[in-house]
């Protein structure tokens, strides 16, 4: 069983579209995250949720809106996609925010 799974794995879309990426974890963790990995492979946190509550929002444009329907799911919705949004987006979870995170396989988003 995959611990942290995200869909889709690849997403190609046009500028201006709205898209969502879904994430689910079956580890029973309380904290979930979205990280963005840019073209230079630099990983940076975008959002963190603990028990469905937003605890980190790292100066991400408000076109990005995370939603956590329950503590096992954290989805990422992106409005009005821009070329600069092209990146790999990783979902992760951890039992405690300070402990190790378990990552999904990533979603490679390409905006054309």
């Amino acid at each position: 069983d995959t611990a942290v799974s995200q869909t889709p794995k690849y997403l190609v879309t046009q500028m201006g579209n709205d898209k969502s990426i879904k994430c689910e974890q079956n580890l029973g963790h309380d904290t979930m995250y979205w990280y963005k990995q840019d073209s230079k492979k630099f990983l940076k946190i975008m959002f963190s949720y603990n028990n469905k509550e937003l605890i980190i929002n790292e100066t991400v444009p408000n076109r990005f809106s995370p939603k956590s329907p329950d503590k096992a799911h954290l989805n990422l919705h992106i409005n009005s996609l821009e070329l600069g949004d092209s990146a790999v987006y990783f979902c992760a979870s951890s039992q405690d925010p300070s402990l190790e995170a378990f990552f999904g396989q990533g979603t490679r988003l390409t905006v054309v």
Partner: protein
Amino acid sequence: AQSVTQPDIHITVSEGASLELRCNYSYGATPYLFWYVQSPGQGLQLLLKYFSGDTLVQGIKGFEAEFKRSQSSFNLRKPSVHWSDAAEYFCAVGRDGNKLVFGAGTILRVKS
């Protein structure tokens, strides 16, 4: 604020040779430290972690790392590299702020 520096962008070693990947961190107290590995097109897998106690930690796949407070370092080592170790390696620091802060990564190439 936490920060992580991985001074080497690329490292090439011969199969069977020893490996050391450098990681320096900036943090006011004893941090939680992690090494992750990312194979091409894959997510991040945790290799090992340090929270406290013995400063030499063992991880998966034959990797180990040593925490040196005096040098603010957490270097990753492996005595004998295998071709399958070719990947990108990320050092990360956690503890405050409910997030992991990653270094820029080191790409390991293995020569046969």
